[in-house]
């Protein structure tokens, strides 16, 4: 299958600051991909390039096989909802109507349902909305557009946990009924981990992880127990992190652990705990830049 997004050796520099360096990735059609990373990792820069709002300083970007910048044919098939999206000074219902003109697959029924779900005041000017309500307007447009490529860049500023869960549930339900390609950029990793089929992690402008979400679970394990037993167990494994408290040790090693190793751990009375995506990011971001996490 032809990837929906295809980036090759993408770079973006601002003066002497590299925002993206040698980023290559492919997003397959019909998947939900998480673009993860800390603030300032390059997520927004990458998405702006995908949306044709910014030019790379090196490398190439193709969306639906074509360069996206100023390409009306590509941009109509894509919706891009960014954090703190700026809107012209319109009332909510006008902003929704304008969006409905632009996107060919627009669902008015879904839009009305989402406006009610998020309790948005239709007559109020967007400028007068709270931050969370403004984010909700972006979410309504992003979902109701039913665009072939749906890109959300941290779309939930000011939304509380309940409203974010509503967003995830509606996204999942509509994605199931109307499959499309979704890219969701976030630093709230554990909240979205189960929604993702594929994970791309950026750190300091570079891709440090690019793998199916299923493979990422078990990428690393924390082994804890009596220090001597822990050290014996991890002796021939790459160690990511070590912690010690008296006679107890807790060591994070690269996984996955095969069945024999798990049995040995039990025999040594060690407890094994897989790292969550959030913890993986922490380790990927704090390890030396040349050390890639492979899954």
């Amino acid at each position: 299958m032809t990837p929906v997004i295809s980036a090759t050796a993408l770079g973006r520099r601002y003066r002497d600051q590299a925002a993206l360096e040698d980023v290559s990735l492919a997003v397959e059609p019909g998947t939900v991909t998480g673009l993860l990373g800390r603030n300032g990792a390059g997520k927004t820069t990458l998405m702006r390039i995908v949306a044709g709002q910014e030019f790379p300083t090196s490398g190439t970007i193709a969306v639906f096989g074509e360069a996206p910048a100023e390409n009306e044919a590509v941009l109509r098939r894509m919706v891009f909802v960014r954090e703190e999206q700026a809107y012209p000074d319109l009332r909510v219902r006008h902003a929704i109507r304008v969006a409905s003109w632009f996107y060919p697959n627009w669902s008015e029924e879904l839009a009305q349902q989402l406006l009610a779900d998020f309790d948005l005041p239709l007559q109020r000017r967007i400028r007068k909305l709270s931050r969370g309500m403004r984010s909700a307007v972006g979410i309504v447009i992003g979902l109701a557009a039913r665009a072939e490529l749906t890109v959300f860049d941290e779309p939930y500023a000011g939304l509380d946990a309940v409203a974010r869960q509503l967003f995830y549930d509606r996204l999942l339900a509509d994605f199931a009924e109307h499959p499309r390609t979704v890219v969701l950029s976030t630093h709230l990793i554990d909240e979205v981990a189960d929604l993702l089929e594929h994970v791309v992690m950026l750190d300091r402008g570079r891709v440090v992880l690019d793998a199916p979400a299923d493979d990422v679970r078990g990428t690393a394990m924390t082994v804890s127990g009596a220090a001597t037993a822990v050290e014996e167990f991890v002796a021939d494994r790459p160690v990511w992190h070590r912690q010690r408290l008296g006679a107890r040790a807790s060591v994070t090693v690269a996984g996955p652990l095969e069945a024999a190793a798990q049995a040995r751990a039990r025999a040594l009375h060690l407890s094994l705990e897989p790292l969550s995506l959030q913890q993986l990011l922490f380790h990927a971001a704090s390890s030396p830049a040349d050390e890639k996490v492979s899954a």
Partner: protein
Amino acid sequence: MPPLDEGTPLFVQIAEQLADDIVDGVLAEGARVPSTNELAAFYRINPATAAKGINVLVDEAVLEKRRGIGMFVASGARERLRAGRRRRFAEQYLDPMLAEAKRLGIDTDTLVSLIQGSSWHNGGDTP
């Protein structure tokens, strides 16, 4: 919603929870199992992941697809699952129990009398 743990691939957990329901008889043979989208919404996971979980059980002939209607529990599925689990019982349950018993200095005779004295063994249904 049953909690999903980290580490084990999600699709494996979906397959295991459906298998649990079949072994427990909650899902009877011939019953329709939830669709991919229903599972995705219930567990709040990606539909592709749910589909992968269902396919694990289709490959094991535990579920069968009836074209245009949905996915159903195959006949003989419960017994096939139980046989598979009996084969793994020692490794999954006995070995860890024996390891812990050894650690605590509980010898085999004591262990046997503990098993015989347990309320489960005596037909009670609360441990």
